[in-house]
């Protein structure tokens, strides 16, 4: 088997899907790309058994064939080869020889029959949306997922589909974010949980533009198609917590702040906080917001004050500054407001301005103050 491909075009395709490959694998073949040539069309596949990524490109080839090529060495070599057509020669023992203007490189490939088969979209339902809508939804939710494998339901983003729109929900039991879009819809009412890793891969593989993407799903798998790039992954087989009951409907006090000022103050003060809790206490009184953090182990202390609008009783409430910073980063509005009630109840964060067909809600539990 023999084919000729542009070095830079090939590298671009490989880098688009290589993120799926784990560093340490039980099965050595998972460190390979599967190359499949069918009439001048090269399909490249990478998988970690849970997530499969696939891409296509044109090459010059006389005959069809398949081979597995070790991913790391191939990418490392292509990175250092200036743009040029490269000739790949594969013999019957799956030994791969790459010929460039500079010389010849050899690597042992593997039998393509040992490469895992990818899931098929049997009985799948689907809908379409813009690439940027999915990327935005991932950016606004993924950070709040849990890494606790003991509660698998929370280690992914929960998709709630119906005719009126789509909701994306993520939580780690301490905070929760919900991002709703009404300009996207699905003919069926369904819910499923997509794991973190494939969403992270999509975030970098998908362009942030108006390209249309197709999303299909069945009971076990999730499929995303963008042009010649495809991703499929296993869904998380667990029940998402009943999150609606924890969203407070009436938090009487409203604190409105400039987002960038608040973010700056939190970043500076949290440097001096305890590095396991990142506790920053917010002391709100009238139109003044004080932020305070300390770390008794290292005798650190950080204090700041800033202007705010507040309509409630004086309140001292503490939060994990990291949570607040991540949430404030996940919204674009110049001003945000927090809806609060007591120092032990959840606070809501919402943007003051948002697009007509989007609705973002963030929820964070405080840290208990021992005083």
């Amino acid at each position, binding site marked *: 088997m023999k084919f000729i491909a542009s070095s830079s075009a090939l590298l671009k395709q490989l880098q688009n899907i290589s993120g799926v490959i784990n560093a340490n694998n039980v099965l050595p073949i998972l460190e390979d790309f599967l190359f499949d040539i069918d009439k001048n069309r090269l399909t490249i596949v990478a998988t970690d058994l849970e997530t499969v990524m696939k891409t296509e490109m044109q090459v010059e080839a006389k005959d069809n064939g398949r081979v597995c090529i070790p991913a790391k060495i191939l990418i490392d070599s292509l990175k250092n080869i200036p743009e040029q057509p490269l000739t790949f020669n594969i013999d019957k023992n799956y030994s791969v020889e790459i010929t460039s203007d500079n010389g010849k490189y050899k690597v*042992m490939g593997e039998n393509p029959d040992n490469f895992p088969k990818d899931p098929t979209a049997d009985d799948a339902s689907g809908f379409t949306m813009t690439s940027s809508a999915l990327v935005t939804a991932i950016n606004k939710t993924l950070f709040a997922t849990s890494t*606790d494998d003991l509660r698998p339901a929370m280690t992914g983003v929960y998709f709630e589909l119906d005719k009126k729109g789509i909701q994306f929900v993520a939580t780690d*039991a301490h905070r929760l974010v919900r991002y709703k879009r009404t300009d996207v819809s699905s003919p069926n009412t369904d819910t499923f949980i997509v794991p973190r890793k494939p969403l992270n891969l999509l975030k970098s593989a998908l362009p942030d533009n108006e390209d249309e993407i197709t999303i299909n799903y069945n009971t076990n798998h999730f499929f995303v198609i963008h042009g010649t790039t495809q991703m499929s992954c296993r869904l998380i087989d667990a029940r998402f917590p009943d*999150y609606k009951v924890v969203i407070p409907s009436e938090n009487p006090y409203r604190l409105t702040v400039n987002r960038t000022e608040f973010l700056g103050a939190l970043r500076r003060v949290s440097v001096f906080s*305890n590095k*396991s809790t990142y506790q920053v206490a917010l002391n709100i009184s009238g139109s003044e917001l004080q932020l305070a953090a*300390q770390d008794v182990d290292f005798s650190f202390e950080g204090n700041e004050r800033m202007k705010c609008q507040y309509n409630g009783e004086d309140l001292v409430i503490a939060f994990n500054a990291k949570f607040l910073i991540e949430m404030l980063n996940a919204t674009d509005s110049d001003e945000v407001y927090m809806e609060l009630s007591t120092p032990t109840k959840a606070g809501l964060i919402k943007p003051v301005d948002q697009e007509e067909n989007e609705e973002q809600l963030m929820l964070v539990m405080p*840290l208990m103050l021992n005083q």
Partner: protein
Amino acid sequence: MDAFYASVEQRDFPEYRDKPVVVGGPPEGRGGVVATASYEAREYGIRSAMSSKTAQRLCPHALFVFPRFDVYRSVSRQIHDIFHRYTDSIEPLSLDEAYLDVTADKRGIGYALEIAKEIRLAIKEELALTASAGVSVNKFVAKIASGMQKPDGLTFIGPSKIEAFMEQLPVEKFHGVGKVTAGKMKNMGLHSGADLKKLSEAALVQHFGKPGKFYYQIVRGIDERPVESDRETKSVSVEDTYQEDLTTKEAMLGELELLTEKLAERLSGYGLKGRTVTVKFKFHDFIISTRSHSLVTSFNDHSRLYDTVRIIMDKTDLTGKKVRLLGVGLSNFDSSGGQSGPQQGGNQLRLF
């Protein structure tokens, strides 16, 4: 369980039965390693952790099978369900091995040997797999006994036979005796339990350190360790041995930073927070030394682990030392799990 992974494969795929089956990575390409070999494959000298290439050289017609860990895990759960019919005091050692304290005896059978027979029968009839069991008065002897008549064996070592049994046991079979200690013992002319028994407790401790105490007891058939059904983790640590000895603090700090990252990941996986960080050094002459430091509040994040490691390194004089191994561990865990220390607030409230 006997050749657990391989037996499950032979059970689920009749075409593998009576054939040398190797569960693990395939020998082709860069090759994997053997996880478990069936008894047919063991006849060719194939052992766990051997490279699959070597295994294939020993037995060219061996069948190589990819492991199906989810299946093994679910079979393991089924085995535990069977155990639970007889006792809830179960201490798992791995997916296919566990200590059972049958003094609880939920079914009122009355004889440990009878319980072992019933469990083995249930495993055979319900799961079509074979297990080997060892029955005795303590964990150490039971474990050794379980390995004596593999596969599909049941060995009983009663109180009256224990001392004689321990005396004939080669030293390397003793719990905690690895290659190094066994070599040391043999150099001293200690080859069996009987030889160890001749030494006083003080002499054993003098030669082998703390474990000497344990050897003194165990060789007399005394092992008071209880079967711990949910063993509490007391410390979590990671370590690495380096190809070339580290001679500068900068190089060590660089490696320690990587180790603390790994440690932080492992700790958050277990959901454990602790207050004491320990750094372990093994020098080029194999002498091991450890240094610890405790903070007021508990933590498990990378930045604190590394800050504390730096405090330890600042206090430790390593001039002229060559370090071949570094380790970092965290201990002194909160009993309540994840709560913070007494002085600072920081109790994160939960939504669910």
